[in-house]
């Protein structure tokens, strides 16, 4: 295909991505360097029968004029990144100086919103990803062994948690683990504590969101692995059997190596997706116990105040996090590409 033809074919999609993905990244970075204008204060002298008093009030008109003249705000450099809501350099330094042991330092970090969100986001990502791969693999192996007639039905039901809207899926589960819901009742019965409330406990809430994550994404892993199992060469398994491999050894030394490229694929996709965990925190109304980076951005942007600069700074930090997660893939792809060319 000629360069010219390629250009015209690719133009619409390239333009859309440039305008609404590439430029917004620039916009986010710019925004994060500017803070909203401060209000303009005026001193008004009120003279009454008992002498004069000066009052400081906000000059609404002047404030609006400044804001309209330069809507992006005033340039503050990296200040927003370093403030208490983000990297909180001063607070971290102080905590480092004053705490006597790791536990204290960790607690101090836990009170800072960014580090709190980071802790949950990373815990979620690195718990859910391996767990969903394992569960997906087990389901794939099991479904592959049941009779043909059941398979379609099982796949149909398995797809539900994955295709249903994440927010809706988390609400459905949230209502069930409500202390008056069916799972909440089961849990408090098992724990032997009738007053147990999952909503009120931070560790239980983390566990609930992590379980939701596994439930939501395991079907994806299952479907991919199941497709991989269909391409498994029969003679390899038979050869392993003749060599006396037990069923477990067949899985360990024949099936898993065969599926390994798919495992890497699922792991990469899921690391990216789990890092953006957001909907379950809204669905479970869990923000008192667990927050994530995406949730902070959402929370800053929403409501009446719309703290765009704060949201933008968190966005940039999140993008940097994604870049870290993605870098091994990119390096590998680049190496493959260099080998090929």
């Amino acid at each position, binding site marked *: 295909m000629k360069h010219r033809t390629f250009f015209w074919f690719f133009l*619409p999609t*390239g333009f859309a991505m440039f305008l609404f*993905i590439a430029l917004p990244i620039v*916009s986010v970075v710019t925004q994060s360097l500017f803070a909203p204008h401060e209000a303009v204060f005026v001193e008004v002298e009120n003279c009454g029968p008992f002498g004069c008093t000066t009052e400081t009030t906000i000059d609404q008109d002047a404030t609006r004029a400044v804001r309209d003249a330069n809507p992006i705000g005033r340039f503050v450099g990296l200040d927003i990144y370093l403030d208490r809501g983000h990297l909180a350099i001063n607070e971290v330094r102080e905590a480092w100086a004053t705490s006597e042991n790791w536990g204290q330092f960790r607690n101090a970090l836990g009170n800072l919103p960014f580090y709190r969100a980071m802790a949950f986001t990373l815990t979620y990502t690195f718990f859910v990803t391996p767990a969903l791969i394992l569960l997906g693999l087990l389901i794939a192996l099991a479904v592959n062994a049941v009779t043909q007639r059941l398979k379609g*039905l099982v796949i149909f039901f398995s797809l*539900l948690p994955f295709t249903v809207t994440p927010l809706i899926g988390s609400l459905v589960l949230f209502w069930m683990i409500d202390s008056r819901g069916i799972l909440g009742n089961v849990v408090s019965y098992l724990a032997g504590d009738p007053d147990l409330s999952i909503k009120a406990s931070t560790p239980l809430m983390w566990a609930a969101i992590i379980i939701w994550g596994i439930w939501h994404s395991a079907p994806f892993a299952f479907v991919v692995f199941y497709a991989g199992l269909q391409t498994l060469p029969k003679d390899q398994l038979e050869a392993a059997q003749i060599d006396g491999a037990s069923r477990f050894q067949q899985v360990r030394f024949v099936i898993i190596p065969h599926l390994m490229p798919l495992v890497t694929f699922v792991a990469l996709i899921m690391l*990216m997706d789990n890092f*953006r965990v957001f909907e379950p925190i809204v669905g479970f109304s869990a923000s008192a116990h667990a927050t994530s980076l995406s949730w902070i951005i959402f929370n800053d942007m929403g409501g009446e105040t719309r703290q765009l600069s704060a949201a933008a700074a968190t966005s940039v930090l999140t993008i940097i996090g994604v870049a870290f997660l993605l870098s091994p893939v990119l390096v590998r792809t680049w190496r493959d590409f260099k080998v090929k060319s």
Partner: protein
Amino acid sequence: MASKAQNMPLGLKIATYSFVAIWVIMAAFPFLWTAWGSFKVELDFFSISNWTNAITGERTQLTHGSRFTGAGYEGAWVQEEFWRATINTSIICVFVVCTSLTLGTLGGYALSRSGFRYTFWLLIIALIFRALPPITLVAGYMLPFFEWNVWGILPTAIIVLVAMNQPFTLWMLHSFFQNIPKELDESAKVDGCTQFQAFRFVIVPVMWPGVITTGLFSFLLAYNDFAVTSMLLSESNRTMVPAIAAFLGTTYTEGQVMFAVAAVVSATAPLFVLVLIFQRQIVSGLTAGAVKG
């Protein structure tokens, strides 16, 4: 498969079947339970006295004289005007799917037919874009959209969703087009077609399976989106998912939770039908990327 040596011992067979059964229950039960409960009153679905009330519907019987009630649905659809959100969602889904498929097929076709090095880099850039959480980009839209006065309306949300969908659509259609033999359009070009004519008359007739599969995922993305639509749409233009979230925010009072439950069931039903009809396409779509890459 039927080799005798592969037959499972009875114990393992039982274990396998029960594991599959447990998984199916885990996957399906929450939805069935919520669908069942949506026809009850709140005191049954969230029963303080006895959880079996949710099954038998004691309180529902007392309040409405029947074991089932449509009160939640009436409240959501009539009183809270959930139908508006449904219409908005339909508009957004139709336009997002059509536009992103049009852009995506052209781009994906070009990427699959051009052997130059920059196609590789374009695909990598698309992969990076795919990895960005949508909400991080939303922060960049807000100020310009406010300035240009386009915040809050459906077309804005549609364009943004189309753009965010492009990386994934490109990857998927690129791999589908690579499976269509190049000889097809090359022979058309030998017969005197331009590249576009070759695409229009030779490739378009055979591309539909791939396009339908990709369209399904575009649809799911638009339908399931919460981050973009809740931030970029004004209250009157809300789609279903932000509307459900808003139910919880403002109306967490007695009885009204059931509105949200009914709305959730209403929003899940189309997806249920979708999976039922397009199960094969969804599975092939999920595996297309994996088997290739």
